[in-house]
């Protein structure tokens, strides 16, 4: 049982890290895109 868990860890750890980093970079990219697209000037009466 212990050996099975060790092998599962050898697969799960790098897999989880790889997918987590990809997700993180995608999140950063989307935030950068949203920030760039959301820079609108408000109208004179302040209603946006």
């Amino acid at each position: 049982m212990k050996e099975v868990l060790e092998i599962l860890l050898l697969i799960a750890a790098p897999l989880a890290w790889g997918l987590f980093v990809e997700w993180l970079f995608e999140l950063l990219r989307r935030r950068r895109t949203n920030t760039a697209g959301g820079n609108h000037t408000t109208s004179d009466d302040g209603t946006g």
Partner: protein
Amino acid sequence: MMGLDDIQAYLQGPALLAALAGFGLIIGILTGMFGVGGGFMVVPLLKLIFGIDYQLAVGSSLCFTIGASASGAARHMRLRNFEPRSMAILAPASMIGAMLGGTLNDILKSHVDAEMYTQSMHGLFVVMLLATAYVTFSGAGKEAGRRSLLQTIVLGPRINLPAAKLAGISLPGLVSLGVFIGMMTGMMGIGGGVLYVPLLILVVGLSPHVAVGTSLGVVLFGSIAGTVKYGMIGQVSLIVAMSLLIGSAVGIQIGAHVCKKMSGTRLRQSFAGMVFLLAVFIAADFVRNLLTD
């Protein structure tokens, strides 16, 4: 001047982990750009520079490749550089091929001198890499719309690869391709992605960008199978693998971004150049071993 023994003595503890992370960054860039898992560089350099035992280097490299290829494949999927149907066929085919290759490897090794056999396989691998580099480079700039080998061979049934807009691909041909590459990796221990990318372009007809992403998906499954095999004999260091992954995580994003910016022709030419350099590196190591025997 610092010799290799001095470098290995210096690289202990945190210095070793930092060096592995830096090394992983470079490997990650190649993974993101070219769809290779990095095993072909990681194994010899772990052995040569870090002094890690060969089997442990192979096992740790395979574990590292799980993370690198998963990250790269996910990134290329978002960029739509991915052909899922071909990946679903090639992944199990190459795992079967790897098992056959590993078995054939063991049988041949028991009948011939092990050292001579290993040197012969390295020599064969150098020849294959040079042929791959030449064919990939000379194929660059070919006109679009030309039918691939798997579209022209008379061997059905046939399938379509809608994500790559390819029709009439020979299914037995595709399966055979996966088994063949799997056998090469099983016999030589390296060469999954570095063989997949050019063969997906030249034999299947995928565009270079889609070949890169699809290759990473196939390599992911192969590396999981390989990690299980080496994990069962205690030849995987999670510390080494995760240290490499810390650096490669950033490198892959850089590599995938650069890949997106390159034209298909330039990507193929660059890939051919990388494969050629790899062949030279392995040939140099091969000659060095021959001269010291």
